[in-house]
């Protein structure tokens, strides 16, 4: 098993009564698998992802449980130990493509940053691998984009840049936190297609987070449904989609945008 998360909890202790954003979350993933997390906004999906990536670094937030990745529990690691994993074995792309890139740094430098941090390569080697990752992420004309700044790119392109920089070291696990929520529907479909391709070509396991069960169905084999920090339902994606047990899940399915429903639940988008 590649990843074994058990009883992951994230508790905020900074305002009065402790607030549990993630409550005993458990999930297992195999190599190369695509697993979905679905839930309404505020259900704790991003907190789960950030806790897993070691991105919750405030003292007012307590992360407990275990997250064993390839035999090592990530949660008790020191920052320095965790850094060995971040960007190399584990990568993440975020919900906000417009603000997740450094506005004053050229795209190329941002894509190759993980290489600079984790490997000793010549500048030319770094560039070659960055361009390669950019092509894999579906960026047209990587040479050109390499020299550009984020503000010169559209949201979809920026998200592809994020994908390229997450993939530049070919991580074992990519966490995609609502990567298409901020993008329009056609771009969304193309990016999902790209993620699928990457999974097929590189065998990258993907933990795919969405508030849209249809999108999850199009991409994932299994899904967990989150509500107020807890998993309320999980299983093979078709089971959950066609035979939801929880009213909450039914609501999630029913509240999907009409446009996609008409096109058949997000399949083949």
């Amino acid at each position, binding site marked *: 098993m590649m990843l074994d998360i058990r009883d992951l909890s994230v508790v905020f202790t900074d305002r009065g009564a402790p607030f549990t954003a993630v409550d005993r979350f458990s999930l297992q993933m195999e190599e190369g698998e695509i697993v979905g997390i679905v839930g309404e906004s505020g259900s704790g999906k991003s907190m789960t992802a950030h806790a897993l*990536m070691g*991105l919750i*670094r405030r003292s007012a937030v307590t992360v407990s449980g275990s997250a064993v990745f390839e035999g090592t529990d990530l949660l008790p690691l020191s*920052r*320095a130990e965790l*850094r*060995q*994993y*971040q*960007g*190399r074995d584990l*990568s*993440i792309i*975020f919900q*906000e493509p417009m*603000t*997740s*890139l*450094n*506005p*004053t*740094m050229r795209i190329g430098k*941002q894509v190759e*940053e*993980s290489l600079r*941090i*984790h490997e000793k390569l010549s500048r030319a080697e770094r560039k070659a691998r960055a361009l390669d990752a950019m092509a894999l992420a579906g960026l047209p004309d990587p040479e050109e984009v390499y020299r550009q*700044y984020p*503000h*010169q790119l559209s949201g979809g392109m920026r998200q592809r840049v*994020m994908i390229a*920089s997450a993939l530049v070291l070919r991580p074992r696990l990519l966490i995609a936190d609502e990567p298409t929520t901020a993008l329009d529907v056609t771009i969304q479909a193309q990016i999902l297609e790209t993620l699928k391709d990457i999974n097929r070509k590189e065998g990258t396991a993907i933990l795919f987070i969405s508030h849209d069960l249809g999108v999850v169905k199009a991409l994932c084999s299994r899904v967990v449904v989150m509500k107020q920090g807890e998993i309320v339902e999980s299983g093979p994606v078709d089971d959950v989609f066609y035979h939801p047990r929880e009213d909450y899940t039914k609501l999630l399915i029913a509240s999907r945008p009409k446009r996609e429903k008409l096109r058949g639940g997000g399949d083949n988008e």
Partner: protein
Amino acid sequence: MGKTLLKRAGLLIGTLLLVSMLAFVAFSVIPGDPTDSILGIEATEEQRLALRAQLGLDQPIYQRYWSWLTAFVTGDFGQSYKYNMPVSGLVAAQAKVTLVLAAVSFVLIVVISLPLGLISARHQGGIVDRVVTVLTQVTMSVPNFIMGLGLMFLFALVLKWFEPKYIPLEDGLGAHLRFMVFPALAIALPKSAMTVKLLRGSILGEMGQDYIRTAYSKGNSQGSALWRHVLRNAMIPVVTFLAMAIGDIMAGSIVVEQVFTIPGLGRILISSIGNRDYPVVQAIVVLLAGVVVLCNFLADLLYRVMDPRIDGR
């Protein structure tokens, strides 16, 4: 970029023209007459009129401005009414003193505020941060004049680190600068306090941005996230602030020169205004404005280099 540069250069010249015009107009409407201070109050009306004609003061203002301007662009700053010598010869040495004082002040601001801003942001809430926060709060509101007196009292009279007597450049660069550091501090400390506060806030603001989370997710340490990502972005507002501070630094120099009895532009400016020695005043005003406008122009260039988003808009 070339086009905006041209536009900025045009703006620079326009500003200088406007400033020189305003100065011209201002000095022709304030009461008092240069002939008073040259001839004394005993002089007859005929003598007065003759002198006015000789100085060209009987001509209408636009004509006077025009002849001043055409001479100015050829490098001729005119004659001092009072001392009857070329203005350029009169102010050159003093201008150098003031410019050195302003430059030392600016360097001090940068040298003091960048490390302090960085450290207090990096160790937010720590002991250094808390001390710096209190100090900046106190220092920020002290006028240059008071700060000058305070430093003079502390370093010259109590600690005796320097003699409260101006040391010219001719006595050696080291000795000159060693003296100049104290008046420069009087100008630099309040501005440094503001810069520290701005930089600290700017760094903390950038630290909370999404792209810093991205930087951490790639395996950056806190230090490298700060150096490689935060700093450049955080410096953008600071550069703008420092550029705008140049005007205050020049003004501060003139004030602080009085406290430390430094023979800079301040002294000659004040005596020339008293004497209604317009050509001298005019030259100093344009010179000061020129320095400020030029520095702003350079800051604008730097700003464009630092923030790639500017040109795209």
